[in-house]
């Protein structure tokens, strides 16, 4: 019996497909509703908030501004110190707006009312006297440091660090060719189907929070720090979560206001973002790389020298510090280039704060390095595959330490490239596209390669419990929110314990039920939470062997476990799994559970993806097909893994061609879902996804690497390359919008 490696159907999908899932907003609880008054100004002094009319309205309990809320919100929102070293950063204190607003959309007051309609009516009845001050809403302006977002910082630069390896100046000088480049991703908006939502209930001593989040345990720690309540008295529950993509791993002032209100009123308070509010709760990407590269006649890239600018928005969110610190490290990618200088800069502007988004820094880095590879190919009139062949780290160099010190664990990049070109039919599709173009069609084929860092530690928690009746409950610190990882983990545990998968239940997302945890992000859950679950299961099995041994009056070593039976090797006596389970709770044994916090580190999957793009006479591009060939280590559930390629690939279509969060000259978000184009099924390509059969394992017990972000990491570069093939133009910024395409078509 083996479940791993098979496309076992997702275990808990019935409720989702039949509309019986429970999101935060579905929870029935006698709570007050919060509604927010928001600033239309990007930067202004708050002179006065007129609450009187609102307070007179029926059903309105109270109205709070920063003056009241910040008495409870003691500390500010800060960076995720597990992954971000705060020391080199300039960080403004970020609590609920008090005295000044720093971006259009920032909440300035919260209304609490008995229902959400009254709350909203009352929010509209509140007027605020502002005194607008100079705002800086673009990175270019902010860089001048003329208008400051935060006076107290003395600069708009939140972070400046130069990542230097080798001697890029010298390498540039001795290179056969030099070329100036400018590459970037414009601002976009992650779009989970379920908007953010929170219910907070403070009863005078304990705080319970039901929260649409990817990181309940980190949230508990942050709430503890911010409100000064010990973690043991905070419970954070993550009900069903309708998508996160990294955008549900940070905390916003609205959520702090909900908790603070509950603490001040001693009553449950709730808030669910409207779609407009959701669009303002998280913006992502926006980074530009400007610099110069050096390369030789044979196509080898020998130097990268430039500046990376990453926009922060008005405040440093929990997750945005990751980008300027990890993008540079990953710019070398799977290639041998060793002379680099990346001046990394993070810049505050009076705009909606920016957070990580699926791939978090790896899509940015991959877009840069893959654009560079394609640039070398174009300059030297070499094929995309040839250029990559000449630059990839070779197998005999593995494990390879990249110029910034990252250690690539396992892989054979060159072989995968060659296999991928065959499996994806790159050469024949290229030829087909060329012929189609001769007939007047605008079709193109493009590929790109990626190396991903994922599986991030530092650790993960898991507990395996065998219940009295022989059931298995696996509690994980990972927090699946749509990926279906729970099914893969059930497969691993069922295999480890040699029990039917129906016996295994996986639970997560409640900080009281799962004492510790980190969460689901960075394509890590199967590897780190899966390995922790396997470890805990092994330990439980060991306990069961001991129970069986005592019952059969044998030494533990004499007991062998196989397929649900504990066998006395010498005497041939047997005990069934159920009997041992029952005995585990007889009063004589300590019960059957084991928990671990398993240490883990990064691992490096890689792959090659290809797209076929067609452009019409108006410059509208469609991705017709998307093909992927990846070495993600061992594949536990191929269907789940493929699903990740489909989802990430569709978001890659969005980032490459559609999704642009327009901020107007007043710093306001100027799009709604009527003109912020999240791709629909119609814009989604046909997918073909393959995984390397001869995979390269990670050091994790599961031998898995990760696949959750792969297609969004490499997809934008793939699609842009296909677009170039189709049109003959050159595009270095995402999204590439139709009129830019049309201009290049002429």
């Amino acid at each position, binding site marked *: 019996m083996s479940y791993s490696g098979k496309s076992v159907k997702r275990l808990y999908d019935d409720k989702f497909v039949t509309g019986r899932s429970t999101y935060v907003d579905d929870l029935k609880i006698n709570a007050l509703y919060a509604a927010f008054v928001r600033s239309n100004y990007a930067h202004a002094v708050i002179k006065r908030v007129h609450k009187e009319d609102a307070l007179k309205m029926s059903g309105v309990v109270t109205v709070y501004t920063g003056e009241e809320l910040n008495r409870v919100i003691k500390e500010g929102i800060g960076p995720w110190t597990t992954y971000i070293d705060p020391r080199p950063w300039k960080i403004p204190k970020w609590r609920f707006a008090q005295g000044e607003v720093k971006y259009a959309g920032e909440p300035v007051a919260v209304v609490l009312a008995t229902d959400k309609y009254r709350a*909203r009516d009352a929010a509209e009845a509140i007027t605020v006297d502002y005194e607008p001050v100079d705002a800086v809403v673009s990175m270019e302006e902010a860089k001048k440091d003329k208008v400051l977002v935060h006076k107290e910082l003395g600069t708009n630069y939140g972070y400046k660090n130069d990542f230097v390896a080798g001697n890029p100046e010298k390498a540039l000088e001795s290179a056969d060719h030099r070329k100036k480049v400018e590459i970037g991703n414009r601002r976009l908006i992650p779009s989970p189907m379920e908007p953010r939502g929170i219910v907070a209930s403070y009863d005078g001593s304990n705080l319970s929070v039901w929260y649409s989040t990817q990181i309940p345990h980190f949230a508990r720690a942050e709430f503890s720090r911010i409100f000064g309540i010990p973690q043991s008295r905070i419970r954070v529950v993550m009900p069903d979560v309708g998508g996160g993509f990294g955008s549900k791993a940070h905390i916003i002032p609205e959520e702090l206001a909900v908790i603070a209100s509950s603490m001040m009123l001693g009553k449950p308070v709730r808030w669910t973002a409207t779609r407009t509010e959701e669009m303002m709760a998280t913006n992502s990407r926006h980074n530009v790389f400007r610099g110069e590269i050096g390369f030789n006649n044979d196509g080898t890239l020998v130097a990268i020298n430039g500046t990376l600018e990453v926009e922060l928005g008005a405040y440093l969110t929990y997750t945005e510090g990751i980008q300027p610190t990890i993008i540079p490290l990953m710019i070398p990618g799977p290639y041998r280039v060793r002379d680099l200088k990346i001046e990394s800069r993070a810049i505050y502007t009076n705009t909606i704060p920016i957070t990580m988004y699926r791939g978090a820094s790896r899509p940015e880095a991959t877009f840069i390095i893959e654009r560079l590879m394609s640039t070398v190919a174009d300059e030297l009139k070499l094929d995309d595959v040839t250029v990559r062949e000449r630059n990839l780290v070779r197998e005999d160099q593995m494990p390879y330490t990249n110029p910034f010190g990252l250690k690539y664990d396992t892989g054979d990049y060159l072989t995968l490239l060659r296999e991928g070109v065959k499996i994806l039919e790159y050469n024949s599709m290229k030829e087909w596209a060329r012929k189609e173009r001769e007939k007047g069609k605008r079709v193109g084929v493009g590929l790109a390669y990626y190396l991903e860092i994922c599986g991030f530690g530092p650790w993960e928690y898991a507990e395996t419990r065998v219940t009295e009746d022989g059931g298995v409950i696996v509690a994980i610190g990972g927090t699946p929110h749509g990926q279906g990882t729970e099914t893969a983990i059930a497969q691993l545990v069922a295999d480890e314990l040699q029990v039917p998968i129906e016996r295994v239940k996986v639970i997560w997302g409640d900080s009281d039920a799962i004492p510790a945890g980190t969460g689901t992000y960075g394509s890590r859950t199967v590897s780190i939470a899966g390995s922790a679950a396997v470890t805990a299961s092994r330990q439980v099995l060991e306990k069961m062997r001991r129970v069986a041994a005592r019952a059969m009056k044998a030494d533990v070593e004499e007991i062998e476990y196989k397929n649900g039976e504990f066998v006395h090797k010498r005497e041939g006596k047997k005990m069934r799994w159920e009997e041992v389970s029952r005995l585990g709770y007889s009063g004589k044994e300590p019960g059957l559970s084991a928990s671990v916090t398993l240490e883990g580190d990064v691992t490096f999957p890689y792959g090659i993806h290809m797209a076929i793009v067609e452009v019409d006479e108006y410059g*509208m591009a469609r991705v017709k097909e998307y093909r992927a060939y990846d070495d993600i280590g061992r594949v536990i559930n191929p269907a789940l893994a493929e699903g990740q390629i489909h989802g990430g690939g569709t978001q890659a279509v969005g980032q490459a061609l*559609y999704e642009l969060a327009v901020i107007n000259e007043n710093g306001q978000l*100027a799009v709604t879902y*009527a*003109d912020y184009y999240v791709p*629909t099924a119609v814009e989604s390509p046909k997918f073909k996804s393959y995984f390397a059969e001869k995979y390269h394992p990670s050091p994790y017990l599961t031998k898995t690497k990760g696949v959750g972000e792969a297609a969004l990491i490499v997809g934008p570069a793939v699609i842009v390359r296909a677009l170039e093939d189709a049109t003959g133009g050159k595009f270095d910024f995402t999204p590439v919008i139709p009129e830019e395409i049309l201009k290049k078509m002429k």
Partner: protein
Amino acid sequence: MVRIPFKRLFLIIKMYPPQVGYFRPESLGEALEFLEREEAKVLAGGQSLIPMLKLRVLRPKYLVDIGGLKELSYIKEGDTISIGATTRHFELASRRIRGLEILQEAASKVGDVQVRNVGTIGGSVCNADPAADYPAVLTALDATMKVRSKKGTREVKAHDFFKGPFSVDLNPGEVLEEIRIPRLEGYRQTYRKVVRRAGDFALAGLALAIKLDSGVVKDVRIAFTGVSQGPHRAKEAEKVLRDSKLTKDVIKRASEASTSGANPPSDSRGSSWYRLEVMKRLLQTSLEVMANES
């Protein structure tokens, strides 16, 4: 006179929109009666009105829901085609009307399935979104709007009905009852629409009807949507085409002329420059197809 049963009057819908009274009349007469007396807005399919309420850009005191009135949902064929105001997009999209094939094509390109199932032609026309699909068709085909109020009935030509973005020739108390479109037999007709993404409003759309006799253009109607304050009738292009053959050169000149008088907006769907390019290409492609077919 129709008496309004007050027991049906004060159902209050409360969603995120502001508080609003809801009235569901049993006949057009009842609706007109109510509209005469109260500060109310007609609700048909709600596909434009409800979002506006949710965004709180409108705050009427009452909604008068005519969406369920059977007497306003019909397609009557004669020399003129008469379409009741609450006829659903879906019904128009599933019916091929001889001499008015373009309407089916346009209706099938409105929004997505959900929108087409609920939204009405009257609602679309009265809403007059500058990127909506029907207004261009009705302008190209010189349709007539039959408008009714308690005081009586009047008729307005499409050209005069569409006054600007979200603005039509309707007075308080008036309801659009019917749309009348002359049958254009022997015309080739096409409605083409350029969108960024499936189900969206047009970046630009083209309604084209053309009558050819031995390759010579006898009559032609061209109107665009999405490129001006309202539907843009491309009279200059029509002039170029009339009495000419659809040669490469004529098509090119007509396409260039089509932008004359258009003043496309620049917004997140596309810049003004881009829209002008799209207009020209739309007309050019459409005419080329027709030239090849003849």
